[in-house]
């Protein structure tokens, strides 16, 4: 896998929360409480931990511990707000290079840890917590499924360092029996295969793409722009008439015609099959 910069998540979390103290002493999952639109919110990011006990999860990967800690960070928010009239928004600041690839991880069930995280975010959304994912760097595969993909709204920065994909280029080429060059050529005409954020945006899954001046070291204007987008996303979620606040809004993209056709067929045939 390519060497990648994984500290954008830390930078954006720190700046957007004005250095709010961590709720837990967890080195690789940073959780804090800080305002969004003037009201309390929970903020979560995955950070590298070079000293992790798990050698395959030292560069910001989502591993066993990260998966279950993400789950805990979200679950405790839901538990604390169980009887509250207003459910706190949860902001996932996303910069995750991959899931952890290792023997220990498989042995102890990393799939279950990531299910813990994905399930917690989905349950929070169903419980009425507005969940927003802010993609500031990499959003790769299982790591993205665990941290952010269950959000009501996804916002990404418009930058070459921002990428979404199911597998790193080198491995994807090997698995599909292609060269990296062939993969890159295909990606130019097959939008879902591309790695860049503009191709991903054409799928219709993002609610917004934001151009900032410096995604690695954002200034005041960049921060103001992102804050405003998060606040707008929050207002938009709260105004959603769908009581389930599901993910149907992601199906409207120009490259998801087949998804819409399948959903429509199922809807029309479902009742008839009763």
């Amino acid at each position, binding site marked *: 896998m390519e060497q990648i910069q994984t500290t954008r998540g830390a930078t954006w979390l720190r700046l957007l929360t004005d250095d709010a103290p961590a709720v837990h002493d967890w080195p690789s999952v940073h959780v804090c409480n800080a305002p969004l639109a003037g009201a309390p919110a929970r903020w979560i990011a995955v950070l590298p931990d070079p000293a992790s*006990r*798990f*050698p*395959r999860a030292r560069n910001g990967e989502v591993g*066993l*511990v990260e998966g*279950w800690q993400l*789950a805990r960070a979200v*679950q405790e928010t839901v538990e604390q707000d169980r009887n509250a009239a207003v459910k706190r928004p949860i902001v996932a600041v996303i910069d995750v290079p991959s899931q952890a*690839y*290792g*023997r*220990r*991880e*498989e*042995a*102890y*069930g*990393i*799939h*279950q840890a*990531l*299910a*813990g995280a*994905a*399930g*917690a975010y*989905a*349950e929070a959304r*169903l419980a009425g917590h507005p969940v927003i994912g802010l993609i500031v760097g990499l959003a790769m595969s*299982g790591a993205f499924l665990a941290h952010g*993909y*269950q959000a009501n709204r996804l916002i990404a920065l418009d930058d070459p360092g921002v990428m979404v*994909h*199911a*597998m*790193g280029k080198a*491995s*994807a080429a*090997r698995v*599909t029996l292609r060269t990296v060059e062939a993969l890159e050529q295909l990606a130019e005409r*097959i*939008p*879902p*295969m*591309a790695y860049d954020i503009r191709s991903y945006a054409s*799928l219709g899954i993002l609610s917004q793409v934001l151009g900032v001046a410096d995604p690695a070291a954002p200034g005041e204007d960049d921060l103001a722009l992102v804050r405003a987008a998060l606040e707008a996303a929050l207002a938009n979620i709260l105004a959603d008439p769908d009581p*389930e606040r*599901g*993910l149907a809004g*992601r199906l409207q993209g120009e*490259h*998801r015609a*087949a*998804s819409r*056709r*399948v959903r429509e067929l*199922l*809807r029309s*045939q479902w009742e008839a099959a009763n």
Partner: protein
Amino acid sequence: MTDIDKLLRRDSFIERNARSRARALLDPGSMRELAGPFERLHSPWLARQQLVTQADDGVVVAKGTLDGAPTVVLAIEGGFQGGSMGEIGGAKIAGALHLAARDNRRGIATQAVILFETGGVRLQEANLGLAAIAEIQAAIVDLRRYRPVIGVSAGTVGCYGGMSIAAGLCSYLVLTREARLGLNGPQVIEQEAGVNEFDARQRALIWGLTGGAQRVATGLADACVEDDTPEVRATVARLFAQGLPAQNRSDRAVEYLAALAGIDTGAQAAPEDVRTTYTQGAA
């Protein structure tokens, strides 16, 4: 009857294709296939890459009853593109689960079985497969509030990638000894981390760590069954009859974190280490 006779008479679940598996789980005569092959739902993305398509995109949506209860079976065809999830197959599963949850909100207690035979995202449709898997996960979490969602992986493909995370969200999981359940396949780990981390040729290691018997012994799945269709069906029916679990496996972060805090990560993990850790702690 001798063991050989028993073996010869056994009604293998693994040898059935996806459609036949779905039919075998539902009450006789009750199955209706939705968004079936006559709708010609070929993957538009595989076609653009001059790759073979299939009219059902490798997923069967079968609606019917199981012991009289409204049930939808979502069967992945491991024989087509390794059971990989593309846009259409993914939309079939997510869409059907969503409608099952909607049924429950309208007073119809529809339940779901997912037959996992999948390597995960279809890399030729990469981001649309990943998006569909996120939507499948959302729909499982929605539906499992009302009725159990039961995952079955029989083999021989196993259950990997983002779909292993979906399996981890199910209310109950049923595996055969031949099944494997894990996030990253051995070959991908070997490519990413080297042969010392995982030697993908060591079949005993793969099944020892991620096979059906081990996953059930460590509490990461609920039942290990023979490759026998009546036994698979009876186990699924028994789990539905149990109703919702007291706690979903994916909700047990506190127990799993406590168990993981106690393990020695200096050495590589062996199957018996995992059994010890998860039978004393989380499981």
